[in-house]
């Protein structure tokens, strides 16, 4: 048999002495090829690959910068009436034209952007903070406390938003600050429900039990384990809340409950433009363009962020 094999393979008998041990790697168990990357760094790397999300992020950054420097780029003030120059179309002097009262629209758009973005950001942050606090307490401690808090949430969410707004504005007047308070009071409900659900789901997981069995205190469990594990959901909801708040402010301005003129916001500009839409369409189209692109940008960015923060989507 072995003769046949060596014939077929063309092998000749090799004397045994020529075999030798060349050495073996016993202790090189595994070579690590990829450098270890932190969680946030990795999320950023994945976000950068998402083109739509990056376009959204660019728009958000450009609008934010313009809200800061925009009003200073022109010599016209957002509140001065140039009564000889009302309803002028966009030209070299007034880049976005002027409105019915002869105010420069370029300045007004970017001042309005300050108000809209500020309301959006602050309202979303306050809502998120309250939502995490109240929903987290309800979910973590559970029992009767959970029952009471969630029934209060149920009752509050049964009251229509507009009634809330009108009631609050009757008590503390209208303007920027009351708007933010109204948003804060009404907006945390959904966030609280979301956070409570997340906490209920996470607190039964083995890694929580493991930390408890290790003697971790409640504050450690919440700060080190619960909140980081909810951060993806929270951040995404936060980015979705910002356009929602901007939009609601626009709606309130539309029905005359927003900020008071001559201060303005994107919603108010669209409202004013809508009234002269048939003769001077640019007065509606310009603020409408900024509102819609900002909405789109925030939604795209929020979407991309959700995908980037989910470790399971990592390649």
């Amino acid at each position, binding site marked *: 048999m072995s003769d046949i094999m060596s014939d077929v393979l063309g092998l000749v008998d090799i004397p045994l002495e020529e075999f030798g041990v060349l050495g073996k790697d016993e202790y090189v168990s595994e070579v690590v090829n990829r450098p*270890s990357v932190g969680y946030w760094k990795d999320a950023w790397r994945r976000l950068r690959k998402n083109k739509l999300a990056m376009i959204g992020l660019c728009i958000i950054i450009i609008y934010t910068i313009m809200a800061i420097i925009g009003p200073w780029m022109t010599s016209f003030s957002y509140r001065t009436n140039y009564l000889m120059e009302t309803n002028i179309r966009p030209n070299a002097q007034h880049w976005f034209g002027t409105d019915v009262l002869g105010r420069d629209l370029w300045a007004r758009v970017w001042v309005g952007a300050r108000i809209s973005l500020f309301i959006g950001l602050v309202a979303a942050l306050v809502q998120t903070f309250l939502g995490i606090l109240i929903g987290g307490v309800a979910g973590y401690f559970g029992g009767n406390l959970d029952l009471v808090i969630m029934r209060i949430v149920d009752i509050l969410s049964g009251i229509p938003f507009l009634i809330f707004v009108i009631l609050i504005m009757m008590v503390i007047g209208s303007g920027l600050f009351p708007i933010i308070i109204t948003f804060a009071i009404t907006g945390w409900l959904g966030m609280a429900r979301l956070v409570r659900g997340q906490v209920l789901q996470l607190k039964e997981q083995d890694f929580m*039990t*493991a*930390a408890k069995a*290790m003697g971790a205190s409640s504050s450690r469990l919440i700060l080190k384990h619960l909140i980081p*594990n909810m951060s993806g959901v929270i951040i995404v909801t936060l980015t979705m809340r910002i356009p929602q708040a901007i939009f609601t402010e626009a709606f309130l301005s539309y029905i005359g409950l927003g900020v008071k003129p001559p201060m303005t916001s994107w919603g108010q500009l669209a409202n004013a433009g809508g009234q002269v839409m048939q003769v001077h369409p640019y007065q509606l189209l310009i603020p409408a363009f900024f509102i819609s692109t900002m909405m789109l940008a925030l939604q795209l960015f929020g979407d991309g962020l959700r995908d980037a923060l989910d*470790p399971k989507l990592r390649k």
Partner: protein
Amino acid sequence: MNNFEKLVEINNIKKYFSMSRGRILKAVDDVSFYINKGETLGLVGESGCGKTTLGRVVNRIYQQTEGQVIFEGKDISHYSKKDYKGITREMQMIFQDPYTSLDARMTTGEIIAEGMVIHNLYKQKDRTNRVFELLNLVGLNKEHINRFPHEFSGGQRQRIGIARALAIEPKFIVCDEPISALDVSVQSQIVNLLMRLQREFGLTYLFIAHDLSMVKHISDRVAVMYLGSVVELTESNDLYKNPLHPYTQSLLSAIPIADPILSANRQRMLLQGEVPSPINTPPGCKFKNRCPHASGDCSEEAPILREVSPGHFVACHLVN
């Protein structure tokens, strides 16, 4: 065995969960045993028989409904939160599912060091060295310290879980089905790792599993549970050679044999019926509706665990 050698002792532990409409689920019903220092007690039984609940009562994650847990001679059944923290240094746990037992947002290093941070052991710099030491001990590399759990395989994750449990140098570890979620080839690695660590550090294990051949390999003594109660407890060789309780006999006859000829010729003992619900258990022996030898006595009185030969405990009326 004198009292001094017992590390953990549980007496008449009951753990009831109240369900809706006033029903009560008896997850663990009157269980007593002890574990000696340096010993491994295997705990076997089918799904839902209360193994995990019992493990968590011993580890003080659940508060028992009734009964006593004694650790190193001290009754720890009613420890406050403050005292509990001290106990966590002595007792640790290894979990069944390596995918949920590690926090996905923490690096390996943070996970392993967590116990040291909580108990304020070592200085900052020494902790990192200690983590390296632990990684090496469980067969992982230094480079793994900054990686996240989802970058590891199941077996590697379980090694991280073991390193985490060892970090604060406990005396006693509850292994809650540490191998059942792993591939067979990895199972033996983990079991051998656990056995090596036991030899090196003189650990005591409560090893919960449903793989009988694995349990035989690692355990000194084995307790068989059925529906919240221990039905048989003896040394592991004795149990496999001479099972006395009909439930143990049927469990053992279900172990696959690698030899086809032996396998074809053996008498298998198949059980009829289903496990009764632990919510409304009928009086008498819990096993009576599935037991091939059940007689009138069995439906009247619940059998208690008694010593039939030295070190061999059985809860059955029919064994003399």
